[in-house]
């Protein structure tokens, strides 16, 4: 491991940028096989008191690291800017290039957030995509950074920072309208479920059953109602359903219906919070006419599928897939920042219909 560090109190963006250039030059001079990664800039805006948690999450994103991470920690009363930079990397044991990653941490005050773009801009690698993640919803800073950002990483499933699912989805929709792309961690938590549902109805043995769905029943972590809404919004947007507003019921259950755009029987939808250690969905059951139902349940090593058909013996099988965990979801978010998902927008709009 080759590593170099720099730190300075009461510093400036220009001095941080100069320090980064010098650290990179030093590393490269030490070993010319060390070259800087050039994937994307990740700007993280976090509350100072939660710094440790955010740093831990960033360190565990797995294989999908950004190349330059700029962590801005905000202390309300701070007036000066402190800077810290680290450049590190390994030379491959098999020879070839070693990739250097750059981490910058800037301690800021609340007074700086409205003009944070002027602090960050000189530190960005200008030709790379820039992703902004504000896990503690420092919206003023995010707004200031929008002109620099290509992608906003958001977690609409975070109950602490949104005033209900409607507000979370509205915030995502607002950002989507500001000419940036959105990578929503709540949406990423539904990937396996979407893939498996899509796969189920691609089987010729279930041909035609998609049109006859009558009920969607989603179980979710207490804090993950938005993931549940996005999954159902995705079904609605793909299948031409028009959802109605949610109605609360006992035990935290929420219900809604969806009308088919082309007419026909409506679809009953129910969201049920369940005790689950990890965030995201716990299960989905789609039911249709003629006694058909397909249930997917989270289980060790993937999902358990259970199918019921009229007059047939119920079947059960395992759908394989290792859980990514929350760190893996963040890593997937970084990866998704390099690609575009055109299905999220319509799913988000449909999900918002539940809360209007």
């Amino acid at each position, binding site marked *: 491991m080759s590593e170099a560090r720099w730190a300075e109190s009461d510093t400036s963006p220009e001095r941080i940028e100069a320090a980064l250039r010098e650290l990179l030059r030093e590393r490269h001079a030490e070993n010319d096989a060390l*070259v*800087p*990664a*050039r*994937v994307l800039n990740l700007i993280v805006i976090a509350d100072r008191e939660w710094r440790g948690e955010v740093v831990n999450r960033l360190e565990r994103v797995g*294989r*999908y*690291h950004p*190349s330059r991470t700029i962590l801005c920690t905000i202390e309300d009363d701070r007036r000066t800017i402190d800077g810290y930079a680290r450049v590190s990397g390994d030379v491959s044991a*098999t*020879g*070839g*290039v070693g*990739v250097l990653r750059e981490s910058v941490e800037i301690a800021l005050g609340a007074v700086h957030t409205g003009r944070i773009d002027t602090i960050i801009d000189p530190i960005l690698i200008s030709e790379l995509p820039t992703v902004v993640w504000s896990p503690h919803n420092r919206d003023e800073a995010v707004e200031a950074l929008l002109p620099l950002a290509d992608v906003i990483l958001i977690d609409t499933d975070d109950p602490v920072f949104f005033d209900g699912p409607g507000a979370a989805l509205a915030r995502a929709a607002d950002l989507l309208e500001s000419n940036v792309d959105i990578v929503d961690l709540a949406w990423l938590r539904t990937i*396996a479920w*979407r*893939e*498996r*549902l*899509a*796969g*189920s*109805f*691609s*089987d*010729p*043995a279930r*041909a035609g059953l*998609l049109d006859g769905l009558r009920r969607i029943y989603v179980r979710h972590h207490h804090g993950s109602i938005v993931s549940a809404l996005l999954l159902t919004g995705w*079904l609605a947007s*793909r*299948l031409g359903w028009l959802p109605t507003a949610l109605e609360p019921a006992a035990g935290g259950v929420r219900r809604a219906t969806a009308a088919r755009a082309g007419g026909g029987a409506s679809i009953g939808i129910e969201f049920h919070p369940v005790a689950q250690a990890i965030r995201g969905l716990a299960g989905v059951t789609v039911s249709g006419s003629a006694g058909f139902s397909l249930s997917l349940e989270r*289980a*060790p*090593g*993937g999902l358990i*599928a259970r199918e019921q058909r009229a007059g*047939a013996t119920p*079947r059960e*099988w*395992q*759908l*394989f*897939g*290792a859980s990514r965990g929350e760190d893996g979801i963040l890593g997937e978010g970084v*990866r998704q920042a*390099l*690609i575009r*998902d*055109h*299905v999220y927008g319509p799913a988000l709009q449909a999900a918002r219909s539940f809360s209007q």
Partner: protein
Amino acid sequence: MVALDVEAGLDSNPLVTGLERQPVRSTAVVIFGAMGDLASRKLLPGIYNLAHEGGLPERIALIGVSRSSMTDEEFRASARESIDRFSRRRPDPDVLEGLLANFSYVAGSFDDDGLYVRLRDALGTLDTGLGTPLNRIFYLSTAPEFFPVITGHLGAAGLNETDEADVRVVVEKPIGYDLASARAQNDAVLEYFDESQVFRIDHYLGKETVQNLMALRFANALFEPVWNRNFIDNVQITAAEDIGIGTRAGYYEGAGALRDLVQNHMLQLLALLAMEPPTAFEANRLRDEKVKVLEAIAPPAPEEVAAMAVRAQYGEGIVAGAESVGYREEPGVAEDSRTETYVALRLFINNWRWAGVPFYLRTGKRMARKLTEIAVTLRPVPHIAFQGPDSDGVQPNQIILTLQPDEAVSVSLGAKVPGTKMQIRPVNMEFHYGTSFLSESPEAYERLILDVMRGDATLFTRNDEVEALWRIIDPILAAWAQDTETPIPEYPAGSAGPSEADALLDGRSWRRL
């Protein structure tokens, strides 16, 4: 024998739109040679990794077929050991246990009719038990002499088609050892399987960098305008290995470098580099273009071979500071072996785009270092304005695509040396995959296994492509086989190859390894 259009259901499913990972029909994979090296090192770990990532279809069953007698449990234990040992990631116990529960084993000799009866019963039981007809993949991970035996028995047992699902057969290289045997092998396979059912694997095509060759050419306006005889002086394709033949003498003595690397991997690289842009990135359109460019390479007449092909064997030498024995001293190699461990070729593509541009190919074992690259050298600038010795540094531009050890693209440019004089020096503009995509690429086999499950043959070799490849190689093999007298040139182990190969270059130089 025509593949059913069972994938049509995917198109009519609106939920599929926008998914990064498209659904795959439930599948039974039958691996012939399930206890072999390829299955242990690549196939079983590859299937596990697909399961880990959620890439396998809703229902998956794997039947191992081999001669050894063993129970399902013993096969699962063996598969678990292979996956634990060779998987690119540490297996998740819950995924692995669940997956292994879907593995079973059928023992038998490949030429035994009874084996195929048992196999048919096992597949039928799976369909009935799972309540859905599974697509079937027969993966021939065996020595090539068994390909016709297995496909013939599959056909005779009626296992080459079903009414409700697709049946595919995967054939590993080598496809023949010359044109006649390749044709015979293709004919034998195609007696019972339609070409659309046959997936001939060259795992090289599953590598990200090889696919990136197409992205580089067809997703960038920068290169295509100069990608022709007007601007390109020559192309060098190098596949150098620092290792020897190891324990593969039995195979290598009968194959040699020409068959082992040139006939498949290197000519595939040439075809992708030189083909016309396909109208769509679709299996047959892409392969049509590859075949066209391969057919434009005129096979040499017997008397032309000596002037366009050089073969050699490694002798004693120093590799990585240690003494290394010569090829003929390797265990299992005949003392008078004439098998080549090094080949260099000069080929011309006789079409409008490439007429007159030499394509130089070289590959060898026990060379100075491991390197696979394509070097495209442009013509010199038509007029050098920088007069006198200051112009010495003006070199033709080169576009280098490196596949190993790093995946990279570099372009050499002439740049001014800082100072008061106008001195020019070549500098490199480099793009390293590892720095721009910090993600881990899937193993080539994972990608290719999934493509077979999807029925996407884009990265597989079509029968006419196989024959076009052999048509180029066959005359060289024939000429070398006839010449039993001329001594085989020798190059020191750890060197860049024999000096005899320099004569192919028309006054140019091989790129330094």
